[in-house]
């Protein structure tokens, strides 16, 4: 209480200018992005949805009339235990003309036995196995090579799609000929497993449901979930499939955009996935994910930022810049801000932190309200119950996600660690590293390539 009084006193003593100077990070970075810009995006999303309402009904009719074969590709390692459940859940999809193609990427458990059994029983349409692990991208590409569908749905074996999810995604291909990929909404299945899982559920709603829906409305969506996305097979074949990960899902989205295709996010096409229950596991997962930002947005696709490029597109420029600015540069600025506060406001540090906390809490609540508007009736009771944990979200973002992200970016820039990602087999990582023409490789390996 005393602290709150101090805080109010502190603020009342400041002029508006001083308030803005003290809390500039919140006002010029986060509130601008998450409240103002998202608010505008949300309005655009609802206007678009309203305008497309009748056409969506038509597109749905067209989809079911034509009823094209849709290939569900499930590449993975040691996913045997999930396959039966997955195959059964696909049978319940409202869209029926599906083929299920499973690729076993060098599993060392009983996955091949399970998969061959399901193949015999007709629960799987086709099954391919790589004895040697080749990485998720190559497994997905193998499935792509032998699938026969007009559309492809890429699905993680441990995710469960809602019964109408495939239909909701596929409709977009009949709304706009230029759409090559539709991202599905990934939500947390085990949200009640721990506080950590609940916080991730809130985070997914914020960063996937809200952020991608709004990015999609602005036409600057840059990522289709690897866990759940639908693609036009011809477009996938044009880009010749996925590239080596990590972040391969983000990468292929950018490559589509380079070719002039549109990519959209469909918040009503929902799949549920299990997230890490422990904070240590979560930190490791995020470390892996965050590195891909530097790698793909900054290094591989830096040509999109070149305004003199022949194929320069303003939207693509914004797509990359938005990510670079808010995730990378602003991350650095946040630390600058943090040290600025620590150094110049040492006496009132606790008050400033408290005020920041309150501001970010308000921001989170507002974003949660945005999310509720998008989620509509697809929200589950459990997802509403955990909304009280919003009070922890500013701490979750500040003290867990931001340090991990910063560390990951630094590591990626300095050590290029993602080439040693355990997620890719050694041979693939090594290839990637060598293919970059720099001298660092010799420092790392201490030897020359023949």
């Amino acid at each position: 209480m005393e602290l709150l009084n101090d805080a109010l006193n502190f603020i009342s003593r400041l002029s508006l200018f001083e308030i803005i100077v003290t809390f500039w990070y919140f006002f010029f970075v986060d509130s601008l992005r998450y409240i103002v810009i998202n608010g505008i995006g949300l309005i655009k999303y609802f206007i678009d949805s309203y305008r497309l309402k009748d056409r969506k009904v038509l597109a749905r009719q067209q989809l079911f009339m034509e009823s094209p074969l849709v290939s569900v590709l499930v590449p993975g390692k040691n996913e045997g235990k999930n396959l039966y459940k997955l195959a059964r859940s696909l049978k319940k999809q409202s869209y029926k003309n599906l083929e299920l193609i499973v690729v076993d990427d060098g599993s060392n458990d009983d996955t091949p036995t399970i998969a061959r059994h399901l193949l015999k029983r007709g629960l799987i349409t086709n099954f391919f196995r790589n004895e040697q692990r080749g990485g998720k991208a190559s497994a997905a590409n193998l499935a792509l090579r032998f699938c026969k569908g007009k559309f492809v749905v890429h699905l993680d074996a441990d995710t469960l799609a809602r019964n109408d999810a495939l239909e909701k995604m596929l409709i977009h291909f009949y709304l706009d000929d230029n759409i090559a990929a539709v991202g599905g909404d990934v939500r947390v299945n085990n949200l009640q497993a721990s506080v950590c899982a609940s916080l991730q559920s809130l985070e997914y709603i914020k960063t996937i449901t809200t952020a991608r829906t709004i990015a999609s409305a602005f036409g600057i969506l840059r990522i289709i979930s690897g866990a759940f996305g639908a693609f036009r097979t011809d477009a996938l074949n044009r880009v010749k499939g996925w590239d080596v990960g990590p972040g391969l899902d983000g990468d292929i989205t950018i490559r589509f955009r380079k070719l002039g295709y549109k990519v959209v996010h469909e918040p009503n096409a929902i799949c549920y996935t299990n997230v890490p229950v422990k904070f240590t596991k979560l930190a490791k997962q995020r470390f892996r994910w965050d590195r891909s930002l530097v790698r793909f947005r900054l290094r591989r696709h830096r040509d999109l930022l070149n305004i003199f490029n022949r194929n320069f597109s303003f939207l693509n420029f914004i797509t990359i810049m938005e990510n670079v600015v808010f995730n990378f540069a602003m991350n650095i600025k946040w630390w600058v801000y943090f040290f600025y506060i620590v150094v110049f406001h040492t006496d009132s540090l606790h008050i400033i932190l408290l005020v920041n906390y309150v501001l970010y809490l308000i921001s989170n609540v507002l974003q949660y309200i945005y999310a509720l508007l998008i989620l509509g009736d697809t929200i589950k009771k459990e997802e509403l119950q955990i909304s009280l944990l919003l009070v922890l979200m500013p701490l979750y973002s500040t003290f867990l996600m931001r340090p991990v992200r910063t560390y990951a970016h630094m590591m990626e820039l300095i050590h290029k660690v993602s080439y040693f990602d355990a997620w890719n087999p050694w041979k693939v990582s090594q290839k990637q590293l060598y293919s970059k023409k720099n001298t660092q490789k010799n420092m790392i390996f201490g030897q020359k390539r023949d």
Partner: protein
Amino acid sequence: MNLADALLLTDKLDAYSIQQIRNQFITCTTRIKELIKPQAEDIQIAFKILRYLYIHQKNIEPIRTITSQYGYRYPILEPFFDSQDHSLLNTLEFLESHNLLLSKEIEKSYQCNSCESAFLNFQETCSHCQSSNLKMNELIHHFYCAYVDNKDAFLQGNGEMVCPKCEKTLKHIGADYDKPSIVYHCNDCHHDFQDAQITTTCYNCHSKSVPDDLVHRKIKSFELSALSKHAALYGLENMLQAVVKEVFNAVDFSTFDRFVHIESARIHRYQVSNSCLFKIEISDLESLYLELGEKAKGFFIELTQLIKIRLRSSDLVSASNESTIVGLLIETPEQNSKIVMERLLNDVDQLLKSSINFHVPISSKLQPITKSIDANELMGLLL
């Protein structure tokens, strides 16, 4: 040729090789001399085969051939059989099941499930339409860009491999690309699959099948067991008699019978009965052979030695048939004979418990020689 003990080559007619061949024949004839005259029930092909193998010290080896529909033959045995039917294999099976031949598996053979022919055509077929019109494709995975496709998609006219995705030239397998697996393409129904279904077609009767349904036969070679060496020497059923003879230096059964007559006559004459007859019989010889195999002889020897220890040198022992030992305890009253038999049976019991681990049903009988019963009747009562 396979039946020959030695080969005399016209271009090697020197003294040494002739001497060698002579020696070979001498050892054979000594073995023939060891043999007893076969009893009537032993004159059958199985016994002949054992004797043949023993005399010539040969094993039964299969040879692969296309001249038999089974895909292999046992040339050494063929002269014993008239026709190329199943009787040869049945006889081998019989001998093996009676522990008279030891087998060693040489290989496994798939045979047609309707005619047992070994001549089968194995084909990869489409798991959808059973067509054998397949194309086998090696997959290539380019590490750099994760592209995966059939080798054909990479292969250029000049034999170089270029990635269709990133247009880089592939250099070394394992370094910048690998071949993760093989995928079949069905030219009839255009299905792509990894696990081709194997279908077999019989060259003999043309029936189609899958490997799981075929007859799986083990092709074996055979050699004589210790048991069969004795069976060859003494006949399939006469081992016990042979052992008893060896251990006791015993009389044969007809001599024994004569002694019983003499003893019976003596008792009639002096009107005092102090002698007893006994019998020890193994009820289930068949299972004993099966269980003990070549150890059966050792068991018989131990058994007869036990009997020998409990008897006096004046007592008389013989074997009346393959499973029965009979004896005459001279000047031993019934009371004493009972004690002797009890101890003897106790010894046998101990032996069975300590040396072999299964129950051998053994029965015994004691028959005092009395003046009121004549010798023929006595023997009838005993046996």
